[in-house]
């Protein structure tokens, strides 16, 4: 049986599982559609949150993102996990106690203002829509790569699969499919990682293997008994690359980490997952479980990245960097397979029949080229996603493991897309239709509105996936920056400051929204239209790139909100009582009936 057929079978089985869950977990009420009836076990919710959180980017790209830069990009590991500490201590338990269905609903009630609620809906939609575009195109790419269907067909299939379980089951269907998707993706990710770690270091736990010594019998003139990271540093500097473990700019690294952490804590599709557990104490535990399941992948990813990078170098330099490079006809089979997809590409520039891989962009690399008669780096295409995608083949694992990676990549994209679509559709049906436009709508009517909003959101997401706006690369920065600058401060002040009033919160949210958009637009172009940027990267304010702006936008939000709230009247007594009640766990179960 060929690999594509096997991929179809494994992916098809995973879809059958999701559909089975969808039929079993149909939503019968708005409480089930928005919050899975608040009956989700905290461990199960933790697992669903992990799948909700880890996108196609975490699954396919993150290991490469770290491996190609080394230490500096550890900020993604810390940024995308450290936010859970903030969420667990500053937001999740209190919002669960509040006991409603959406993030804008808390903003609207706490700040006794439909204006605040609508501003929050706008922030939520901008954040979630930009985020979902990446997921849909990620799903399309995953289909294209593994099942050899074209990208657009892949997108339609992804949209159709999400449609079935999200429209039918709402949060309830999404929760239990996310649990299944988590299992698929974590198995797919860890099996090849364990085998590679065993081959290179003899340690079955990749996170420990990363700090272990090299095994006997590794190719590439690698000395046994030397630490893996020392070996990698040595190979990379020989070839003119930066040292793997070196620091570049610690202050910017800290600022970007902070931006990702605050942004993570303020992402609505993650926050609403904590509305599904029965009690406040469960929300606290559940955040811990979520991080356990996330950490299983995030502790493995840096090891996968470093080990795969080492493997590629020793494949290219089987006798070590001082010996002969690999002859073209000796390239392994997996290399040729991936060359067909265009993710790897070679060109024998100096015509010696061998493929020399080095960094032609550095002085050390050029010296290396001169000494060895090279005329340029001959591994001309080296897509960083290859580090995860080709892992099973590098480790000589059987075809079904490769098929699992296919199912895992698709599961990661679908689970995140579904969570985002629920956040969008519930903000539309619950916050705009039910609360602002038609407060008299019946329970049945609202459930129907929720299903229609979900269907509409999926159609829009598929459309945007097919015709991605020109700013695809910047959207993640926008989503995290905006979540950090708008929703996080507003939610936090709503809980921790009794004095914060509606004028302050609205002014703060707008200050965060406008300052962040302005900073992004000035440097990246108005609405990301290329060429309309008014300043370039040499003119960054204090050297801060737009991707790092989140914490500064948040500071604007906090500062403006504080000043405006002190200049205006304090919130009414019943709002102060509401804050008092949100702070205390007792009585959370009662909210179930609403």
């Amino acid at each position, binding site marked *: 049986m060929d690999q594509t057929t096997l991929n179809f079978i494994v992916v098809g089985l995973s879809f059958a599982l999701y559909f089975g869950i969808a039929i079993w977990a149909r939503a019968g009420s708005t409480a089930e559609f928005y919050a899975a009836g608040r009956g989700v076990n905290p461990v199960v919710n933790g697992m669903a949150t992990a799948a909700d959180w880890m996108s196609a980017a975490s699954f396919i790209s993150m290991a490469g993102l770290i491996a190609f830069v080394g230490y500096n990009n550890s900020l993604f590991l810390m940024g995308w996990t450290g936010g859970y500490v903030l969420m667990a201590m500053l937001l999740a338990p209190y919002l669960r106690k509040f006991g409603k269905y959406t993030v804008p609903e808390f903003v609207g009630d706490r700040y006794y203002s439909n204006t605040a609620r609508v501003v929050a809906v706008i922030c939520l939609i901008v954040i979630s829509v930009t985020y979902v575009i990446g997921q849909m195109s990620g799903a399309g790419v995953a289909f294209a790569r593994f099942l050899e269907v074209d990208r657009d067909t892949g997108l339609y299939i992804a949209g159709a699969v999400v449609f079935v379980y999200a429209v039918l089951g709402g949060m309830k269907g999404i929760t239990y499919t996310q649990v299944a998707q988590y299992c698929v993706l974590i198995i797919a990710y860890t099996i090849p990682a364990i085998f590679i770690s065993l081959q290179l270091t003899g340690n079955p736990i990749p996170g420990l293997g*990363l700090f272990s010594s090299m095994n006997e019998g590794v190719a590439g003139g690698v000395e046994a008994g030397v630490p893996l990271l020392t070996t990698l540093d040595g190979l990379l500097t020989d070839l003119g690359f930066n040292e793997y473990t070196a620091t570049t700019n*610690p202050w910017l690294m800290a600022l970007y980490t902070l931006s990702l952490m605050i942004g993570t804590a303020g992402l609505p599709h993650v926050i609403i997952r904590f509305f599904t557990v029965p009690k406040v104490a469960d929300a*606290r535990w559940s955040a*811990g479980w979520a991080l356990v399941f996330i950490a299983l992948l995030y502790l493995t990813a840096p090891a996968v990245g470093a080990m795969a990078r080492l493997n590629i170098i020793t494949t290219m330099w089987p006798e070590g960097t001082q010996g002969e490079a690999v002859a073209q006809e000796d390239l392994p089979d997996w290399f040729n397979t991936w060359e067909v997809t265009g993710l790897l590409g070679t060109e024998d520039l100096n015509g010696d029949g061998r493929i020399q891989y080095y960094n032609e962009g550095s002085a050390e690399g050029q010296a290396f080229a001169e000494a060895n008669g090279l005329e340029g780096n001959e591994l001309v295409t080296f897509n960083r996603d290859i580090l995860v995608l080709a892992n099973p083949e590098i480790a000589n694992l059987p075809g079904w493991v490769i098929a699992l990676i296919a199912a895992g990549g698709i599961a990661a994209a679908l689970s995140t897309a579904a969570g985002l679509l629920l956040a969008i559709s519930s903000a539309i049906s619950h916050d705009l239709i039910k609360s602002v436009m038609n407060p008299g709508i019946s329970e049945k009517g609202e459930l129907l509105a929720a299903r229609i909003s979900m269907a509409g959101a999926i159609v829009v997401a598929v459309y945007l996936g097919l015709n991605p706006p020109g700013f695809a690369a910047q959207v993640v920065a926008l989503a995290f920056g905006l979540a950090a600058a708008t929703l996080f401060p507003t939610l936090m002040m709503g809980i921790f400051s009794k004095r914060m009033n509606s004028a302050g919160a609205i002014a703060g949210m707008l200050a965060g929204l406008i300052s962040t958009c302005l900073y992004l637009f000035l440097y990246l172009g108005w609405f990301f239209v290329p060429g309309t940027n008014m300043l370039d990267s040499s003119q960054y304010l204090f050297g801060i790139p737009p991707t790092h702006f989140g914490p500064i936008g948040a500071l604007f939000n906090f500062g403006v909100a504080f000043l405006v709230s002190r200049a205006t009247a304090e919130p009414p007594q019943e709002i102060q009582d509401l804050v008092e009640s949100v702070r*205390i*766990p007792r009585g959370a179960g009662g909210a179930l009936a609403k």
Partner: protein
Amino acid sequence: MSENNAYWSANLRLVTICLVIWALASYGFAILLRPLISGIEVGGTDLGFWFAQQGSILVFLFLIFFYAWRMNKIDRDHGVDE
């Protein structure tokens, strides 16, 4: 009301302690204070690198479970548990 105030300040104290450790493990040891602990070697590199790629995440995990455990106890002590 004063019982609630005592509960809330116990919560704030716990959150502050946890966030100091949170910042120390990530912004501190893994990034800004990395040069200070560069003398401590871990598997071919320094302790700061280990904190950046493994240690900080393990500390985050510990902190959330510690917070949940302590906080649930504080709830019971102040009679505001569910």
